[in-house]
């Protein structure tokens, strides 16, 4: 009973996604067909390739009521087989190099890769470490980089939507 009165009193808290796309960098132009096909319903598989988990905390925020990525038809899925997009975080460590590649192989075509966080692009403070194999795009092809350490949930969402070319009209 208390739960439902709380639900009633809170109402819908999802925020509209406002403009401000400076955190996103398009690495490759995605084929039009892919955009058309995936634009409406996308399964996302998150791969932690060795991040400090800062990015994960922000990504978790996406599923909450405030950012609510489901309203764009995006959904986190349990298996790369169900996924259309890989959300990769962190510098790729030696241990995660093969798994990352395997995950990419396991995902059916057409697929997109969004690399989240500065580490994914530059390896960040872990650059040059003996345990790090390299940036994400040195292992698998990346479509979009999302900058920030860690990036805000809104930026990640913008990055995903940029990959799909589906940013809401300004």
């Amino acid at each position, binding site marked *: 009973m208390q739960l439902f009165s709380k639900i009633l009193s809170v109402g819908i808290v999802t925020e509209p996604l406002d403009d401000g796309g400076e955190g996103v960098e398009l690495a490759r132009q995605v084929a039009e067909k892919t955009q058309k096909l995936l634009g*409406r319903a996308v399964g996302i598989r998150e791969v932690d390739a060795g991040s400090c988990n800062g990015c994960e905390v922000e990504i978790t925020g996406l599923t909450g009521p405030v950012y*609510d990525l489901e*309203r764009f038809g995006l959904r986190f899925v349990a298996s790369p087989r169900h996924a259309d997009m890989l959300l990769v975080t962190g510098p790729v460590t030696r241990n995660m190099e093969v798994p990352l590649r395997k995950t990419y192989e396991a995902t059916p075509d057409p697929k997109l890769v969004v690399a989240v966080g500065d580490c994914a692009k530059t390896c960040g403070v872990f650059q040059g470490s003996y345990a790090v194999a390299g940036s994400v795009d040195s292992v698998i092809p990346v479509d979009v980089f999302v900058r920030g350490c860690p990036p805000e949930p809104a930026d990640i969402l913008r990055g995903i939507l940029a990959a799909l070319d589906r940013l809401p009209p300004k």
Partner: protein
Amino acid sequence: MSGWLVEFFQIVFALALAPGLVGLIRWIKARLQSRLGAPPWQPYRELGKLFHKEAVVSKNASWIFRFAPYAVSASTLAIAFLVPVLVVPRRLDMVGDLFVVVYLLLLGTFWLALAGLDPGSAFGGMGSSREVTVAALAEPTTATAIFSLALGAGSTNLGAIVVAALNDPWTVLTPGHLLAFAALFIVAIAETGRLPVDNPSTHLELTMIHEAMILEYSGRYLALLEWASWLKLFVFLSLLANLFFPWGIATTLTPGALSWAIVTLLVKLALLAVVIAVMETRVAKLRLFRVPELLTASFVLALLAITSSFLLR
């Protein structure tokens, strides 16, 4: 002729609406979680996308893995043919009764469980093992509830049960009827993998039942399996709605009766969707080893249903 046309229309109707029902439940749940949520027609988009993606199949898998999606969808479709959705009496009533429906469900489970084992993945095996456990333990409840329904109607044929309930609207309030409804509702929850038995939106392999088995599927195979599982939910809910609250179902083939039947069915399904969404917001997933207790409870309900309809005749 028009009778067959209507039969055909029923199945198309069920097939077309099944994703929408799941979308509706998801949408209501999102609203209850203070989210905007995806629109109710999102599952259609997902199906469209999956049908146009390639499929990745494990190199360890055999033909069982590729055949299973077809077998599962065929058995679910066959169930959809047998269940009265809009009209009674049915021409297809003679093909199968409630027991046939139950065993067709088992047929689907059988294939899906085999497909879970086929690629040799530990997740798939786990899912299969749990799915067959839940399916087996739900059987006594189902059979007993069918028995108590059949006692009232004098037949296990679905059409006959619905007609009997239509002829005597007060039976709906008898405890036997209500208890059987409660029992079958729990079974429906367990069979369609909803909370609290299974969480349809989980990402954690260790807590999965249904999802774990289809973890290996992709592309058109996944689309078929998803559609089949949504159809199963749709069929189960319309079965519950029509067996226990048959008001509004068409008994003649006039357009007026048919459209009224469609409207009432939609209202009943929407109500059930709200019930499920509210319940899924309220309860947490049960530990796997408490699921048998839930099913035992449903069995006791069914047993009570049968005693009260048996001894108070």
